C-alpha cells in the first residue's frame, strides 16, 4: 500500500486507482457508475414488462419468464441502483459539506463498492442457470421462495447477491456516519450541518439499524432452502415477512431522505435564500427516521397476523414530519428570487410527484382501504410514484446541481430541459393509470389480464417508452457535455455550503485553501451576504 499525505494533491488514476483507490470521490463515482449500469439493465427489464402488458394475452414471454423479469427488475432497481446511488451521493458530498479532508473508514467505502459489484454480478448470474434467476419478487416471501416452489440455482444466487448488496449498503452507511460524527471541521457543529448532510446522517442510521434484519432473513432463507425447518412452522412465513419488512420499509426512506436533502439544497440555492425552518426540518427528519423504523408491518395488513391499529397509527403519524418537510421546502421558495434552471425544475418535479406518492401512501396506511388495493396495481403506482417519480427526480436535481462540482463542466441546459419534460410526462403517463387499474381490480405481477384493462395498460406502456426517451436524452447530455466541455467555475450557482468553496473537481484531500468561517448551515451564503461579519460581531 502507498500512503498519501496532503502533499499528494490528486487521486490515483489508471487501472490501479480504478480497483483500489480509497479516495471517497473516486469510490462514489465508481458506485454511481455501477448503479447506473444496473439502472440501464433494470430499465430494459421494465420495458420488457410494459411491452408484454401492452395487450392482454401473452406475446413476449410466458408467466414463468415474466416472474423472473419483474423480480429481477425490482431487485435490481432497489438493491443495485437506488440504494447504492443514494449512498454514493453521501460518500461524495458529506465529507465535502462538513469540511473533511477524507471520509471516515475509507477502506470500508472501497470494500462497500466491491461488495456491490459482487452482489450485482452474483444476482445477475442467475440468468445463466438452468431455471433462470430468482423469480419470487424483490421480497422473496417464504414459502414462495423455498426450494420446492422456486427450485434452481438462480434463487440461491439471488439470496447471496442480496446479502452482498445489503452488506455493501451497511458499510457505506457506516462510513458516512463516521464522517459526520468524527470528521467535521472546526466550527461545524451539529446544527451548522447542511440539510443534505443531516439527511445522509439519518439515512445512515436507518441502514445500519435495518440491514442486519435483512441479512438475518436472507441467511435463514438460505438455510430453509438447503435444510428446511426454519419457516415451515406455523407463523414461520410471517416471521420472515417481519424480518424482511423491518429492512424493506426503512429502505424506502433510504431511497428518499438523500433526495429530500439534495432538493433542499437546490431549492435554497436557486431561490437565493437560506433554507427555511432549518431546526424544524432537522427535528422532523429525526422524527421521520424513528417513525419510519416503526411502521414496517403496514406492508402486512392483509396477513391478519400483525397489530393493525398500532401500525396504522404509526403510519398515519408519518404525515406530521412529512408535512413539516414539505412546508420547509415550499417556505424556502416563498419570497425567494427564484432562478429557473434544470436542477430547480427537477426539484419542483420531485416535490409535486412525491406528494402524489405520499398521498397515495395514506390510502395504503389505512387498513380498510389497503385491504381493497393490496396486491393490486394501485400499490405498483404508489411505490413507483415514490421511488421513480419522486426519488429519481430528486436524484436528477442533485445530478444537474452537483455535476459541475464533480466534473468541472456544465451539462447542456437545452438537452436538460428535454430530459426533464420527457421524464415528467413519461412518469405521469406511465404510473398514474396504475391507480385506476389497481382500484378497479387488476392484480400486480401478472403477465396477462382481463381485456377491460387494455386501454389504461396501453397508455402506461406508451409512458414507459417516453421515460426511455427521457433517459436517452440524459445520456446524450452526459456524452455531449463530456466531449464538448463547457468549463464551470468553482461555484457556478452561488452555493451555500462548503463543497462550493473548493475547486471543481475537488483535489485529493478536498480543500487546498483554508475553509471559510463556519457560523451557520450556509457558510458561503453568510460570507456573500455579510452575515458572517454580523454574527462574529454579535458573538464578540
Amino acid at each position, binding site marked *: *500500500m502507498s500512503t498519501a499525505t496532503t502533499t499528494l494533491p490528486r487521486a490515483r488514476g489508471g487501472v490501479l486507482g480504478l480497483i483500489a483507490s480509497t479516495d471517497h470521490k473516486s469510490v462514489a463515482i465508481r458506485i454511481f457508475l455501477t448503479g447506473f449500469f444496473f439502472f440501464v439493465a433494470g430499465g430494459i427489464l421494465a420495458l420488457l414488462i410494459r411491452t408484454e402488458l401492452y395487450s392482454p394475452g401473452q406475446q413476449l414471454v410466458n408467466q414463468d419468464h415474466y416472474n423472473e423479469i419483474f423480480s429481477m427488475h425490482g431487485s435490481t432497481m432497489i438493491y443495485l441502483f437506488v440504494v447504492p446511488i443514494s449512498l454514493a451521493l453521501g460518500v461524495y458530498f458529506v465529507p465535502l459539506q462538513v469540511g473533511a479532508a477524507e471520509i471516515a473508514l475509507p477502506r470500508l467505502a472501497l470494500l462497500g463498492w466491491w461488495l456491490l459489484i459482487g452482489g450485482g454480478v452474483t444476482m445477475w448470474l442467475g440468468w445463466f442457470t438452468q431455471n433462470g434467476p430468482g423469480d419470487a419478487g424483490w421480497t422473496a416471501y417464504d414459502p414462495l421462495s423455498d426450494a420446492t416452489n422456486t427450485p434452481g440455482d438462480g434463487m440461491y444466487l439471488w439470496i*447471496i447477491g442480496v446479502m452482498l448488496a445489503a452488506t455493501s449498503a451497511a458499510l457505506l452507511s457506516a462510513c458516512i456516519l463516521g464522517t459526520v460524527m468524527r*470528521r467535521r471541521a472546526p466550527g461545524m457543529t451539529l446544527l451548522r450541518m447542511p440539510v443534505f448532510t443531516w439527511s445522509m446522517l439519518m439515512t445512515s442510521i436507518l441502514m445500519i439499524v435495518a440491514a442486519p434484519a435483512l441479512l438475518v432473513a436472507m441467511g435463514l432463507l438460505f438455510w430453509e432452502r438447503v435444510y428446511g425447518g426454519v419457516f415451515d412452522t406455523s407463523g414461520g412465513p410471517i416471521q420472515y415477512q417481519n424480518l424482511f419488512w*423491518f429492512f424493506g420499509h426503512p429502505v424506502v426512506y433510504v431511497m428518499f431522505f438523500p433526495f429530500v436533502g439534495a432538493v433542499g439544497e437546490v431549492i435554497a440555492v436557486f431561490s437565493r435564500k437560506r433554507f427555511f425552518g432549518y431546526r424544524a426540518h432537522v427535528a422532523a427528519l429525526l422524527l421521520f427516521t424513528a417513525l419510519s423504523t416503526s411502521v414496517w408491518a403496514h406492508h402486512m395488513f392483509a396477513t391478519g397476523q400483525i397489530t393493525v391499529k398500532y401500525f396504522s397509527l*404509526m403510519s398515519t403519524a408519518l404525515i406530521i414530519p412529512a408535512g413539516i418537510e414539505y412546508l420547509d421546502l415550499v417556505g424556502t421558495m416563498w419570497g425567494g428570487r427564484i432562478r429557473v434552471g434544470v436542477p430547480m425544475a427537477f426539484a419542483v418535479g420531485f416535490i409535486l410527484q412525491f406528494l402524489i406518492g405520499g398521498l397515495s401512501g395514506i390510502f395504503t396506511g389505512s387498513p380498510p382501504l389497503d385491504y381493497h388495493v393490496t396486491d393490486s396495481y394501485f400499490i405498483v403506482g404508489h411505490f413507483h410514484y415514490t421511488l421513480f417519480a419522486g426519488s429519481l427526480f430528486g436524484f436528477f436535481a442533485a445530478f444537474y446541481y452537483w455535476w459541475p462540482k464533480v466534473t468541472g463542466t456544465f451539462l447542456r441546459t437545452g438537452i436538460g430541459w428535454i430530459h426533464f419534460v420527457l421524464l415528467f410526462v413519461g412518469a405521469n403517463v406511465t404510473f398514474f393509470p396504475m391507480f385506476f387499474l389497481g382500484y378497479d381490480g387488476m392484480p400486480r405481477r401478472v403477465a396477462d389480464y382481463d381485456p377491460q384493462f387494455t386501454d389504461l395498460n396501453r397508455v402506461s406502456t406508451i409512458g414507459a417508452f417516453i421515460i426511455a426517451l427521457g433517459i436517452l436524452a440524459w445520456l446524450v447530455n452526459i456524452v455531449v457535455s463530456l466531449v464538448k466541455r463547457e468549463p464551470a467555475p468553482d461555484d457556478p450557482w452561488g452555493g451555500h455550503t462548503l463543497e462550493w468553496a473548493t475547486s471543481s473537481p475537488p483535489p485529493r484531500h478536498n480543500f487546498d485553501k483554508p475553509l471559510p468561517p463556519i457560523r451557520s448551515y450556509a457558510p458561503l451564503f453568510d460570507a456573500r451576504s455579510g452575515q458572517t461579519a454580523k454574527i462574529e460581531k454579535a458573538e464578540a
Partner: protein
Amino acid sequence: MTPISAVPLACYAVLIGITSVVLWVWTPYTLPPALLSGGALLMLVIAAIVALRGRTAKPSVDRAVPDLSFATVGVALGIINILVGLYLGLYLILIGAGILAFGLGGWIREARAQRRAREIVDAR
C-alpha cells in the same frame, strides 16, 4: 472532544425505544417489538461509542490517508468467494478464506504503515 455528536443517535434510539415499548404493550406477538427494541439497543451502543471517542481533535488535513488499498480488494474477493461458496461448494469457501486471510493481513500491514506515516507528519 465532545460527546454532543452522539445526541442525534441517542435521540433516535430513545424514540424507537418508546415506540417499541408501546408495541410491547399493544401486541401479543414477540418478534415485532423485539426487532424495534434490538434496533434501539444497537443505536444506543453506537451512540455510546461515539460519545466516548468524540470528534477527531486534530484538523483532518494533517492525517495521513491511505491512497490505494489492495488489501481491501482481497477482503472483498474473499467475502464474495466465501458467500458464493456456501452454495457452490467447500472448495470455493476455502479459496475465499485464503484470499480473505491475505486481505486481513494486508489491512494490518496498511494500518501499521499508516501509523508510521502519521508519526512522520506529526513530527513535521
